[in-house]
């Protein structure tokens, strides 16, 4: 009897020790999408790097990833499972705003620390409310993005006097992303009369569309100085091909997809197309953190990161690891306090700190970058402190 009790006690102690052995980070991403796929790969890369260097507080990190399949119900169920079955210490990840909205009630229920890599729509912020002090949002909100584009184009016109923008035309995909982008552009660019904003919707190739003739005709008639399209990567090359066929050459030709098709930069059509983003491989030249991330990713996966969700997710892991180290535990209150003091030199080419947004208390990145395809490379043209090239202006006439 005595031996049995001792054996059981030993087993229990071993189980407890094993449970304490790893710090569990739960994560959800859409794994069939390039953003979630590469985001999860980069997060695993960060976990492996940290573990190789000895882990955090003498413990190894363990990343538990669940595919949210870009569905709000699956994503909400994933939060439930991560918290109640996997007993994770904190949660990272996310991409789509609609999916994040579905997760908010479960996140609120458990109050675990969340470091979110996705959700640009401010409707998510409204759903979270001001009390969500456990929520740390890395990705900029839509109004942050709009404000930074406005600031960017204003500053570019001051620095490069040959760049003149008055009329902006936004071709936007019919869904929530495109419509939201158009609404924000109107608010942030046209409100004070400095810019004239016009736009028209189109059905994205991602939704079975892909015919841009009528929207490009409307844009051509508007004679914009800056033409932008807000859609998906499937629209990138076909819209340029049709613009070329229609001889539509605005002063600046831009796009705002979350990622680019494979080999976009090798197409001659990509030359001098401007776009918005958070990261590009060219940032390696101005940021050692970016180079470290990039080299590690390529070495591990034999693949180039193709979306900014990769460095963003990589950053999320390093930020939580650093906070756990400073907090000395994974206790929620201590962790929140440590995360609030974050100062992380990220691969995005900027230092991430958390400051208040319109509603939530902890907003990480607040600005996007303006980039341009030049000779097959994604060059940063704004902000100037992380710029890798000067803007090429105007967009050349089609030959």
């Amino acid at each position, binding site marked *: 009897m005595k031996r049995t009790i001792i054996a059981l006690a030993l087993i229990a102690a071993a189980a407890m020790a094993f449970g304490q052995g790893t710090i569990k980070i739960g994560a959800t991403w859409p794994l069939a999408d390039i953003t979630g796929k590469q985001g999860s790969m980069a997060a695993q890369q960060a976990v492996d790097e940290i573990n190789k260097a000895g882990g955090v507080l003498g413990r190894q990190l363990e990343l538990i990833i669940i595919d949210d399949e870009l569905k709000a119900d699956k994503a909400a169920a994933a939060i439930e499972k991560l918290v109640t079955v996997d007993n994770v210490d904190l949660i990272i990840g996310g991409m789509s705003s609609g999916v994040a909205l579905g997760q908010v009630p479960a996140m609120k229920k458990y109050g675990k620390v969340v470091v979110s890599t996705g959700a640009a729509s401010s409707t998510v912020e409204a759903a979270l409310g001001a009390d969500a002090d456990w929520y740390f949002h890395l990705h900029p909100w839509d109004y942050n993005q709009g404000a930074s584009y406005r600031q960017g184009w204003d500053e570019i016109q001051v620095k490069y006097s040959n760049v003149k923008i008055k009329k902006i035309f936004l071709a936007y995909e019919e869904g929530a992303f495109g419509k939201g982008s158009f609404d924000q552009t109107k608010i942030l660019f046209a409100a004070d009369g400095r810019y004239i904003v016009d736009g028209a919707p189109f059905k994205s190739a991602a939704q079975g569309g892909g015919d841009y003739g009528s929207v490009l005709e409307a844009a051509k008639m508007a004679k914009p100085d800056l033409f932008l399209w807000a859609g998906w990567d499937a629209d990138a090359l076909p819209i340029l091909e049709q613009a*070329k066929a229609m001889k539509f050459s605005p002063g600046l030709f831009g796009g705002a997809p979350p990622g680019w098709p494979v080999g976009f930069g090798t197409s001659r059509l990509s030359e001098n197309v401007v776009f918005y983003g958070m990261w590009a491989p060219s940032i390696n030249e101005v940021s050692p953190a970016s180079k470290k991330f990039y080299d590690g990713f390529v070495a591990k996966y034999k693949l180039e990161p193709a979306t900014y969700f990769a460095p963003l997710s990589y950053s999320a892991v390093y930020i939580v690891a650093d906070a756990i180290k400073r907090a000395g535990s994974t206790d929620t209150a201590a962790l929140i306090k440590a995360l609030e003091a974050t100062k992380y030199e990220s691969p995005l080419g900027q230092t991430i700190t958390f400051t208040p947004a319109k509603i939530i208390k902890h907003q990480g990145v607040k600005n996007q970058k303006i980039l341009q395809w030049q000779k097959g490379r994604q060059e940063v043209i704004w902000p100037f402190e992380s710029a890798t090239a000067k803007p090429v202006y105007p967009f050349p006439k089609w030959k």
Partner: protein
Amino acid sequence: MANKRNLTIGVLLGVAVLVILAWRPTVLIYGLQAAGLYASIAIPMGLILGIVHIVNLAHGEFMMAASYLTYMICRASGMDPYLALVPVAAVTAVFGFLVYKLTIRRALKAPELNQLILTFGLAILLTQAANLLFTSQTRKLSFDYVSASVDIGELSFGIYNFVFVAVAVAMVVGLRLFLTRTTTGKAALAVGQNPRGAAIVGIDVDRTYAFVFSLASALVGLMGAAFITRSSIFPTVGSPFTMKSFCLIAMAGVGNIPGILASSVLLGISENFLKAFRGTRGWADIVFFVLIITVILGRSIRGKKA
């Protein structure tokens, strides 16, 4: 009386076309181009539905798979998709034959719901296989000829997409000749109209079905190769075209292949007409369903009167 009515409709349509041409010629240009694409994707599905009597819900996914095959061939060899379409069509014909023999054939006598579930399952299988092999990142082959254009005064427009009009017309003419002039085609037509009767007179119904399924798959393969010149490809690129094709066939009436082309023209021009107005640009999908409901309802009322 009927002649007078047809003449009136013809004159009205002619006037409408002339008015559109004078007001916004691009409505007609882009409308016809869209119609060519819709029709050339829908016609192979119409062939299967008309003869094998099965709704292939994996139709768009067959085209997606053919597009990926074309992509791989072109990337590896530097070949143009229009040269690659011959081997691609051959591969998809064999693929179609195998799919028919291994799956479709066994469900022909099953309830229609089971047939739908089977082809829906095939669609999911193909989409997920593409996802695993190629990820969801989009791919596109870019060619200068896709941006070929014509200038008429101030108007510049792309002419490349007229290729799909030519493909659709070639499919309609080719299939009509095949079905009415060749022994195999006549047998296929007979099987489509009355499989039991065709079997009684000695036609091998199963072989005919297999042949038609393979032929339609080859045509889808051909379209998959042409499609990648125009559009980006990704695992779910085909599924919207399955629904659109099915609806066009429903508008035309099962077995009416020239009718698919006519329905596509009506749809393409209507969509682009609405896109020309600022307030109705987002209504293209609505006009699609309005047209389908109107045509099917009209046919049903006419049938009741008859």
